[in-house]
């Protein structure tokens, strides 16, 4: 018997390939589908179209301009309000617990006679960094991610993509970018990973580079603090949480506007090209599965993101403590750096302390506010600041020369500035390119400087500040 070697088979395949018609792939898929259809027809019975009719009615409601667009805004508002008002209480409880544990640890170290700098470094630096990040980040995420997953499970999110696609098309981007933007509210790094649903490389890159323009949970605390102290304080206390949420929604919408603008700019300059292949499945509405929602949102998303944030928060906490405890002149190193940065900060309508806080907080944006408070109050570790918003107002405005311009520009800066270290790493991992990771920093930071500089200049020219 003649033996056939693998090479013979390959050679035979090579010759047969040339005789194939060009449409043979279509034929293969077609035959697979007709076989599947045959099987399904034998096994599946469809009772009635009632479900389909209901889906149709809902679809018309959520995609019409008169009900669909307002609904999107209302849902966004509700989620942010839930996050803002719900997280507040939980954050405080967690903070009390964790800071209490920290006190215990510090006392223990003092009792066994450890040197002050070991106690300080470990408990006031590393541990405090972790405690801050957990207490600030965990509650909003534990509220936001289940809400997001609920809408996802319900089947509503693809409709948002459907509604907004025309805008993305105008910007030369992909409609599914609205999904990755929504994910960015939870965590920009998670949003960058979520861009995998966009299959065109050009449009995916646009989604990655602009994801940072939606503020994530880690940046909410800064926005909420500013909204509460500078905006909501002018209203009755009962309305505080609504006004704060409303202000944050406003800032978020500015961020969305920047997303479109940047996408448009990118697709006309460095990422030139036409909008391409857009296919979006609109799944039938499903009753959300509570167990799955909790599992996905808590385990896959919240814990995952928190763990990553903790890894970067610990070293950041250490550095902050060191800066605050090395004496320099008549204060400490942190104060000295802040003073040195101050002229530049003032040009941008900010100040040196804010810039310092943002430089130290590159690993984790959650610690911006405690770091600012630490420097303003001359403390040796991150602190909560005055307990009431009136106290904070007094400290910032009367004690450190803040104006309304500082508050507005800090909001803009918090919205536009560079991605956190985790997000930058994620961008590198997803694009496999340091070039694009660098571009993402340059774009955002450049825009943040430009916008704050412009608002500051305009405000000063008009005599507002």
């Amino acid at each position, binding site marked *: 018997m003649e033996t056939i070697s693998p090479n013979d088979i390959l050679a035979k395949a090579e010759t047969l390939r040339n005789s194939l018609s060009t449409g043979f792939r279509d034929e293969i898929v077609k035959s697979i*589908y007709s076989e599947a259809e045959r099987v399904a027809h034998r096994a599946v019975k469809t009772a009635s179209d009632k479900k389909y009719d209901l889906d*149709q009615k809902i679809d018309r409601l959520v*995609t019409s301009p008169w009900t669909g667009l307002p609904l999107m805004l209302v849902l966004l508002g509700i989620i942010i309000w839930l996050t803002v008002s719900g997280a507040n209480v939980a954050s405080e409880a967690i903070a009390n617990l964790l800071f209490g544990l920290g006190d215990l640890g510090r006392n223990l170290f003092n009792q066994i006679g450890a040197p002050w700098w070991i106690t300080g470094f470990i408990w006031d630096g590393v541990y405090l960094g972790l405690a801050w990040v957990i207490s600030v980040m965990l509650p909003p995420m534990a509220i936001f991610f289940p809400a997001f997953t609920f809408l996802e499970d319900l089947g509503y999110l693809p409709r948002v993509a*459907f509604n907004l696609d*025309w805008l993305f*098309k105008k910007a030369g981007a992909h409609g599914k970018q609205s999904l990755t933007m929504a994910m960015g509210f939870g965590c920009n790094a998670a949003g960058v990973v979520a861009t995998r649903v966009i299959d065109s490389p050009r449009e995916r890159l646009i989604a990655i580079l602009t994801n940072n323009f939606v503020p994530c949970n880690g940046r909410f605390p800064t926005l909420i603090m500013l909204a509460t102290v500078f905006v909501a304080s002018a209203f009755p206390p009962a309305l505080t949480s609504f006004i704060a949420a409303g202000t944050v929604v406003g800032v978020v919408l500015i961020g969305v506007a920047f997303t479109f603008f940047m996408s448009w700019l990118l697709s006309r300059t460095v990422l030139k090209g036409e*909008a391409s292949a857009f*296919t*979006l499945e*609109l799944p039938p509405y499903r009753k959300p599965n509570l167990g799955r929602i909790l599992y996905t949102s808590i385990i896959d998303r919240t814990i995952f993101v928190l763990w990553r944030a903790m890894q970067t928060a610990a070293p950041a906490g250490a550095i902050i403590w060191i800066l605050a405890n090395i004496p320099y002149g008549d204060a400490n190193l942190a104060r000295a750096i802040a003073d040195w940065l101050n002229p530049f900060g003032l040009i941008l309508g900010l100040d040196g302390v804010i810039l310092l806080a943002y430089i130290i907080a590159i690993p984790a944006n959650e610690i911006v506010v405690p770091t600012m408070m630490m420097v303003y109050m001359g403390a040796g570790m991150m602190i909560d600041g005055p307990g009431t918003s009136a106290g904070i107002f007094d400290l910032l405005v009367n004690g450190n020369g803040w104006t309304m311009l500082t508050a507005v520009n800090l909001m803009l800066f918090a919205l536009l500035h560079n991605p956190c270290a985790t997000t930058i790493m994620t961008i590198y991992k997803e694009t496999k390119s340091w070039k694009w990771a660098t571009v993402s920093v340059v774009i955002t930071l450049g825009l943040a400087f430009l916008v704050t500089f412009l608002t500051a200049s305009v405000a000063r020219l008009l005599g507002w500040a």
Partner: protein
Amino acid sequence: MYYLAAVITVALILFLPRIGLLARIKDYRAAKEREQMEDALKHLLDRENQGRHATPESIAGTLDIARDKVTRLIENIEAQGLIESRGNNLHLTAEGERWALHVLRAHRLWERYLADEARMPLNKIHGEAQRREHNFTEAQLNELDAALGHPIRDPHGDPIPSREGKMNRAEGMSITAWQADRPARIVHLEDEPALAYQQILAAGLRLGQDIRIIEKNPNRYILSDGESEFKLAPAVASNIFVSAIPESEMLKREAIPLTELAHDQRAQIVMLDDSVQGFTRRRFLDLGLTPGTTIFPELTNFFGEPRAYRVRGTSIALRNDQAAQIWVKPV
């Protein structure tokens, strides 16, 4: 001391082998030179396929370089045995033709890739392929070819040379062997003998024209393209090669693009446009948009697009430029 350090640094930056500035400039110029040579070879091949001869002037015009540089370029290529000049005319040697086909293959495979996988707009791919076609090895091209599923034609419909360096010429048969009532497309005009070729061109027949035989007898052939009639002697007509009009175009004539379907109007998918290849086609097929499938628009965005279509029990939203590539027949 500082001067010495500065001088050494500058010297290193300039003269370091491989990464020094001079070495870089040399590499760059070598690559540029090779690119120019390959472009010239391609131009010669192109001319030969058109039955014309390339001249130093035509090279200068196509490559957009000065006359004196062309002379040097030609001397250079001739010295490598890739072309030979007879009078003012330039011809490819066997080796030169092999090389030219290699570059042409690279160009057309790249066009296929840019159109199908990178999904660049069609009017941009030629320029991009022009930049990328150089400095590829045979093995690299074979890999690209396999990754693209061994395409036969580039996105403009031109044949891609095979790995053996053969042009997959459009086959066809002489119109004298063609069935009288069957529509046909001219795929090749034989240019030898020249007299017959002249007559065909003078009659107004051209490549790619769709024609039909109106009358044939031993004395003459009458062909029609639907508007005008062409009368030719059988000996001349035998130099016209035709093949069947692609099935897809016949199907298209009775179909409308999916975008023109009214709301809730049911239709059957006839075919996916031939211009949809690679990634987009695979995605369409994956979604079940196969010929014969029932489809209807069920939801339209308030700005006109995207529209959602119900197909196989699922709702799939498409932008209009995608939907326009799906041909359907209302039922």
